[in-house]
C-alpha cells in the first residue's frame, strides 16, 4: 500500500511507453507515429482499447499547424464502440491529471493517457511565441530560448548558478541519457556549443524533435493485477503563475512549490526526480522549489528534456520515466514534474511510490 492516501482511491501508473524521439519524422503522419506507442503500452497490461475505462490525450493544434489535429489521431485508438474520452490542449501530464480525477470519481477503473508532438513541421521557437500575451508580447516575437535566457541571466545575477554549472547540468543529463534508448541526444560528448541566446548555449537548450508518450493508469486491485509493482500516485497537484515575466521572480517557482506541498513531496524523502526542465537553467529553479539540494536524489536519470523534448509529451514522459523506475524496482519514492508556458509559468508535480519489496 502507498504510505499516504489523501484521496478516495489508490491510483497507479501501471504501464508506460514512448517512441524513439527524433529530429524529424516526415515519413509518418501523427497517427502513424502515435499508434505503435498505444499498442506497446496496452500490450504491457494485456488490456485492449475497449477494456479501458477512460481515455485522455494532450496535444496542440498550433504545433501541428492544423485545427482539430487531435481528432485524426484518435484513429489510432480504435474508438469503436464509442469510448469515454477527452482531450486537453496541454502537455499530456495534464491529460494524466484529468484521467486521474476521472478514476477518483469512481466512474473508471483504468485510463489510457497519451500525448504527442511533432515540432519538425514548423519552427517551434517561433510557434511558441504565439503562447504569449497577444497585445504586449506576441507582436515582438520573443522566442522560447530568448525568454529562458532572460531567466538564466537572472539566476546568474542572483548568484544561483553560472555558465559552468549550467554546462555541468547539460553534460550530466546527456550522460544519463546514454542508458535511455529513446533519447534524441545522448552521450557526455555532446558539445555545449555557441551561444543561442546568451547566456544559454546550444547545450543548455533542448533538442527539437518529434515524439509520443503513453501511460496506463489503474485503481486499487486492478493496478495490482496489471502490474507487478505499480507506481502509486500518492500525490498530484498543479498550479499556475502570473503570465507577465516582469511580474514574476524568474529565479523562483512558487507554483512548483505550492503544487509540491499539495502533492506531499516534502512528507518524506524522494530517491528520484524527473524534472521537466527544457533548459539547463530551469533545473536550477526547480531543484530549489522542490528542495532537491543533495546528491542523494537521482535527478533526471532518463536524461530529461535536455535529452528529448517532444513538446506536449515531454511532461508526461517525466511521469512515465519516474513510474518506470518504480516498476523496475530502481526507485521507491519519486517526484515527477511537468511544465507549461514561458519560463515555467505552469507546473504539475506528482509523487509516485512503490510498495516495499
Amino acid at each position, binding site marked *: 500500500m502507498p504510505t499516504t492516501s489523501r484521496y478516495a482511491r489508490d491510483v497507479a501508473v501501471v504501464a508506460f511507453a514512448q517512441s524513439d524521439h527524433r529530429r524529424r519524422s516526415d515519413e509518418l503522419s501523427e497517427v502513424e507515429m502515435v499508434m505503435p506507442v498505444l499498442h506497446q503500452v496496452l500490450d504491457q497490461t494485456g488490456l485492449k482499447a475497449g477494456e479501458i475505462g477512460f481515455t485522455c490525450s494532450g496535444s496542440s493544434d498550433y504545433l501541428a499547424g492544423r485545427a482539430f489535429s487531435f481528432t485524426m489521431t484518435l484513429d489510432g485508438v480504435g474508438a469503436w464502440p464509442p469510448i469515454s474520452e477527452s482531450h486537453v490542449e496541454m502537455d499530456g501530464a495534464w491529460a494524466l491529471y484529468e484521467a486521474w480525477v476521472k478514476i477518483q470519481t469512481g466512474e473508471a477503473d483504468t485510463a489510457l493517457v497519451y500525448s504527442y508532438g511533432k515540432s519538425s513541421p514548423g519552427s517551434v521557437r517561433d510557434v511558441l511565441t504565439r503562447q504569449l500575451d497577444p*497585445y504586449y508580447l506576441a507582436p515582438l516575437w520573443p522566442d522560447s530560448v530568448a525568454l529562458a535566457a532572460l531567466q538564466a541571466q537572472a539566476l546568474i545575477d542572483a548568484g544561483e548558478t553560472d555558465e559552468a554549472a549550467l554546462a555541468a547540468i547539460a553534460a550530466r543529463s546527456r550522460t544519463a541519457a546514454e542508458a535511455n534508448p529513446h533519447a534524441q541526444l545522448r552521450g557526455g560528448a555532446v558539445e555545449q556549443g555557441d551561444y543561442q541566446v546568451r547566456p544559454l548555449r546550444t547545450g543548455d537548450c533542448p533538442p527539437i524533435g518529434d515524439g509520443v508518450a503513453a501511460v496506463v493508469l489503474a485503481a486499487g486491485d486492478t493496478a495490482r493485477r496489471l502490474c507487478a509493482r505499480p507506481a502509486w500516485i500518492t500525490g498530484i497537484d498543479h498550479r499556475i503563475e502570473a503570465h507577465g515575466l*516582469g511580474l514574476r521572480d524568474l529565479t523562483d517557482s512558487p507554483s512548483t512549490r505550492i503544487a509540491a506541498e499539495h502533492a506531499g513531496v516534502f512528507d518524506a524523502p524522494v530517491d528520484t526526480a524527473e524534472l521537466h526542465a527544457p533548459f539547463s537553467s530551469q533545473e536550477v529553479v526547480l531543484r530549489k522549489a522542490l528542495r532537491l539540494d543533495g546528491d542523494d536524489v537521482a535527478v533526471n536519470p532518463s536524461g530529461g528534456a535536455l535529452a528529448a523534448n517532444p513538446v506536449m509529451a515531454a511532461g508526461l514522459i517525466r511521469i512515465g520515466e519516474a513510474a518506470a523506475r518504480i516498476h523496475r524496482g530502481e526507485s521507491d519514492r519519486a517526484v515527477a514534474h511537468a511544465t507549461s508556458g514561458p519560463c515555467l509559468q505552469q507546473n504539475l508535480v506528482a509523487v509516485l511510490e512503490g510498495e516495499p519489496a
Partner: protein
Amino acid sequence: MTAASPPEVLRAPLVVEFPFTRSLGPVQSAFLTGLRERVVLGVKTADGKVMVPPVEYDPVTAEEIRELVEVGATGTVTTWAWNGSPRPGQPLGTPFAWVLVRLDGADTAILHALDAPGPEAVRTGMRVRIRWAGERTGAITDIACFEPHDAEATEQATPHDGQFADAVTGIVAAARLDYTYSPGRSQTAYINALADRRTVGERCPSCHKVYVPPRGACPTCGVATTDQVEVGPAGTVTTYCIVNIKAKNLDIEVPYVYAHIALDGADLALHGRIGGIPYDQVRMGLRVEPVWTEGGRHPDHYRPTGEPDADYDAYKELI
C-alpha cells in the same frame, strides 16, 4: 498484396497566416494610445504597486484595476539576454539584447529589445531609455527598442486620466507561421497513385473494411491499414447538397452539387463535386465516375456514368 518499399516522402509548405483584429479594452487602449503619444502609462494596484505595462487585472487579487499613472521613458534593466541572431518579426534586425526594464516610477518590468553594440555593453542594472519608433500607430512596437542612457532615475509615477484624442481601440496583429507538411506513409501512397489517376485505398487487416482515402489507421480497430486496394473508378452518390453560395477562394459557378460518393469497393464515401448533369437532377443513388483535368491532383468532378441508379439498400450504410 502488401505495401511496397516506402516511397519518397512528400513535403509541401503550409503557411498559417492571418491578420488578427484585436480589441483592447480600456486599460490596454490607454497604454497603446499613450505610446503613440510618447507617454508611458502604468496602472496602480490596490496596495500601491505600479504595473508597467499596465495589466487589466491584479495578478494577486484578480481585482479589476483602472487607476492609471504616467511613468518615465527611462528605466533600469532587471535582466537581459544577448540575441546574436534576430529572428523574423523581432524588434531589431541586427544583434540586440532582450531586456526586462523597470521604468522609472514602475514596480514591474516590461519586455523589449535593447540596441547595444555588443553583449559586453549590457549588464543588469544599466540605465536605458525608450527609443520611439518614427511612425507610431498605437502598438507595443511604437517602442522601437531601448537604448543605453546614462542618467539617474528621477521620475515618479504621476496620475493620468488615460484620455487621449482619437484613442486606439484595436490593433491588427498579423501573424505568419511557416510549416512543412508531410502527409505520412499511408496518404503518400494514396497521393502517388492519384498521379496515375488511380484511387488506391487500404484495407484493415482486422475488420477488412477498405478506407479511401487511407489515413494510416483503421479508426475502429486502431491498427495500421496496410493492404492496398484499388477502388472505383465509378461510384454511387450516397447523399449531397446543392451549394448556392460562393465559398471564398473557390472558383466554381453556383449552384453546383457537392456529394458524398462511395467508390465501388470502398467502405465509406469521399467527397466531390458532381458535374455533367443539371444540378437539380442529381439524386441519391446516381452512378458517377471521375473526370480528371490536366494537372489536377484530384478528380475535377464526377459525372454520371449512365448506369441505372443504385438501390438505396445497396449504399445506405455508406453515407
